[in-house]
């Protein structure tokens, strides 16, 4: 299929890479002339320089025979116009990233009228991600739910204090309901077997049944906390949405914002939140607001450096779990070593959300971990496949692949070598992106 992506930012490129590996033809439209050469030499795509809302540019990009258009520029308006234009050319699927919630009121111009099939709101997705992380134990840096919440995936940072550090996997006694599906060590993915050891510094990906949270508590050691109060730094869209969601679940929130006018606006939006007008990088202010008693600290200002440093400061001052939003993905690999519990990156979250939409139909769900190094796919086992009713250990799975969970009716199975897949099961598989094709070939 021919896919046109408008906007060659982080999101656009991440999507392009995934689409390429699945043999789609990708055309990227971007205004910036200087990126063309770089893109052309790294990706097998066509780059068109121009405004994505300009119909001539879109024609040049081949809108007439495109199967999908994904508009992810910085500008909501450009994204919307691109989608409207695409629908005029009868492009089947259109996806737009729209940030500004003012366009989202129920009686505003409807999605259908704009010709947008799916709207992605990065702020909203990011807020949801932050909530998931806040609810999980301290050393969890990634969470994801599968099979309608029946199965949870946790990325846990293993440190020296961890009970399982330096132990072999077979000695971990996690019980029947959990499985260490993957270890991420020094930028490498390891799909472990019983003999592999867990080291401090690894990120361990643990799959558990929803009802069996004890094992995750056990794995994370004494650091299990129930989040009661949260301080949010920055009255950005993400900050406001996070606060709203937290308030709904009854968690107390404080929001620190430096701009007075913004504070006024926010206070109208968030009646239950205590809005504090002040500089969040100020130690005194943080102390006054009881940072040492805080369960969660979330920094979501527009500046990466501020977010990172204040999060570190908050951790130092006694906040139990700190989460920072960053925009530059280049920082991510070093961040989790310096003491920040988790980072969220709206671009990566958006890319993952869009990819999930793209896969819709073949797969029920898809998650990207570690900047796309690991893919977790969820699908329904088809009828009459050779893989059905066979013990898993006899299946010829590609390298670096493990079946994380099988959900059958109401039962959730964390599988072992002797378990089988029956048609109709929801299967959750961990794999490398390069192997996704083989997996689809094998099961779908």
């Amino acid at each position, binding site marked *: 299929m021919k896919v046109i992506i408008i906007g060659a930012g982080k999101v656009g490129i991440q999507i392009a890479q995934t689409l390429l590996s699945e043999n789609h*033809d990708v055309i990227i439209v971007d205004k910036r002339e200087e990126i063309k050469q770089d893109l052309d030499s790294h990706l*097998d*795509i066509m780059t068109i320089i121009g405004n994505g809302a300009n119909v001539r540019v879109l024609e040049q990009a081949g809108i007439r025979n495109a199967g999908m258009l994904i508009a992810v520029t910085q500008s909501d308006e450009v994204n919307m116009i691109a989608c409207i234009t695409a629908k005029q050319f009868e492009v089947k699927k259109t996806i737009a990233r729209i940030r500004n919630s003012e366009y989202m009121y129920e009686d505003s111009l409807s999605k259908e009228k704009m010709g947008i099939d799916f709207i992605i709101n990065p702020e909203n997705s990011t807020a949801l991600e932050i909530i998931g992380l806040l609810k999980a134990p301290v050393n969890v840096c990634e969470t994801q739910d599968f099979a309608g919440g029946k199965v949870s995936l946790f990325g846990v940072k293993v440190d020296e204090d961890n009970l399982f550090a330096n132990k072999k996997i077979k000695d971990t006694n996690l019980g029947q309901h959990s499985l260490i599906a993957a270890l991420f060590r020094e930028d490498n993915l390891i799909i472990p077997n019983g003999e592999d050891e867990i080291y401090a510094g690894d990120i361990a990906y643990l799959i558990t049944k929803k009802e069996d949270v004890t094992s995750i508590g056990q794995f994370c050691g004494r650091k299990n906390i129930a989040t009661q109060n949260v301080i949010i730094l920055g009255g950005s869209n993400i900050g406001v949405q996070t606060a709203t969601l937290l308030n709904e679940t009854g968690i107390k929130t404080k929001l620190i914002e430096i701009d007075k006018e913004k504070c006024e606006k926010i206070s109208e939006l968030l009646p239950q939140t205590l809005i504090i007008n002040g500089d969040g990088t100020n130690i005194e202010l943080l102390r006054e607001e009881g940072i040492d008693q805080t369960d969660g600290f979330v920094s979501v200002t527009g500046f990466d450096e501020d977010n990172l440093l204040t999060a570190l400061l908050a951790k130092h001052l006694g906040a139990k779990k700190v989460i920072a939003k960053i925009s530059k993905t280049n920082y991510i690999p070093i961040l989790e070593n310096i003491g920040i519990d988790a980072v969220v990156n709206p671009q990566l979250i958006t890319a993952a959300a869009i990819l999930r939409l793209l896969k819709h139909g073949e797969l029920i769900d898809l998650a990207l971990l570690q900047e796309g190094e690991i893919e977790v796919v969820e699908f329904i086992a088809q009828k009459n496949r050779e893989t059905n009713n066979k013990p898993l250990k006899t299946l010829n799975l590609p390298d670096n692949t493990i079946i994380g969970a099988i959900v059958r009716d109401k039962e959730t199975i964390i599988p072992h070598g002797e378990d089988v897949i029956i048609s109709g099961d929801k299967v959750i598989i961990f794999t490398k992106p390069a192997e996704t094709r083989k997996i689809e070939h094998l099961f779908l």
Partner: protein
Amino acid sequence: MKYNTVFHTLGMIVLSLSASMLFPLFCAFYYQEETAIYAFLSSIIITLLFGIFFYYHFQAENEIGRKEGYVVATLGWLTTAAFGTLPFLFSGVLTNFIDAYFESMSGLTTTGATVLQTIEGNPLSVLFWRNQLQWMGGMGIIVLMVAILPALGAGGMQLFKSEVPGPEKYKLTPRIKETAKLLYQIYIIISALQVACLYFTGMSFYDALTHMFGTMATGGFSPKNLGVGHYNNLTYEIIIMIFMLIAGVNFTLLYKVLHGDLKSLFKDREFLFYISVILISIFIITAQLHIYIYKSILTALRYSSFQVVSVITTTAFVTVDFDQWPALSKSILIILMFVGGCAGSTAGAIKNIRILVLLKKAGREFQRILHPHAFTPIYIGDKKISEEVVSSISSFFFLYMLIFVFGTLFMAYLGLDMVNAMFSVATTLGNTGLGLGSLVGPAQNYTFLPPLGKILLCLCMLLGRLEIYAALILVVPEFWKK
């Protein structure tokens, strides 16, 4: 440098070369040329074995990067030319490796300079091979690789860039593999059309095919001693002239035209420039030939138009010994030899787009003197040429001339007189294959050049075909540092 990847890809190139020798082998069987059959069989086997060794002994580790692209392109051309010599040597047509390498390289780079003293009388299949090499080199062996190799990913673009001529390279499709395929499709369609035209106007199939190879690649090899002049047939000359003209046009543009977009032809500034240069040259030369040599203006037009198109497209088919022409006409042909065809065509030399940009750049300097603060980007048509491209074009022009100068000095050092020294270098660097002088003029061949001179000219051909930078970057020491 990922050597394994490089050698693996080279293995693939050698394997395809071996497969391509099946055509002349078939030809040898058809004409029952016994020595040639053995020559091709053994060439195929040797090439195949080397190919298999390279292909399997070195496993590709990862994608071809920027550097690997250049190395594969340059080494690919050097090795292809080397294995291309085998049929010449085994059949006894040429006995000296340097001569055979010269012939093979001259074929592949579509230069068309030859060391064969007489062409007729050699096995037809070997002559077929010689012309087929031109056709393969015309659109490019690397582009062929990109078209047939399984997914090269972005590496394909690196390879593509290092071979396709012109200052800027465009994709026709999102996938580079598809673009390479489309280019070859157009190439094959137009080639088939030419064969049909020649065949149905009375040329034998063998002659039609071999002349098509020479025309479409803008190479200029012919299985006849006198080239196209052998037939003294106006129809053939017109057909060949038209197809030379087409082969000198950017194939991206031809793609658009074949898809019904005729307008783009007349909007393309490079094409218009190319046609204008041709028309003006034909006009002047015809006038002069009419005054000084031919009584009939139509005869003058016939020879001048064929020769102008033949030289500007760097084909160098000859229908007349233009060494006898008046000085102005000769000078125009010499200058055309430097101009060449359009970017993205099979023609060689500097290319019209570069000349056009350089002209505009020269004009811009005046503008800058008059208005020191003027913002003066260079436009070709409605397309802005970025400053980086403008500067790389200036450097290309300078390097081209520099190589021309030093090549000439070297040839003079080897004992050639000035005219021969200059034209042997100019003609090989421009992949034209036809010069002036007692040794390299239209009626002469390169047999009597000293061996060192032949080696230098081989290098000039390669530099010309890969447009200097792609090949010359390999001698920059920093390129090899980690």
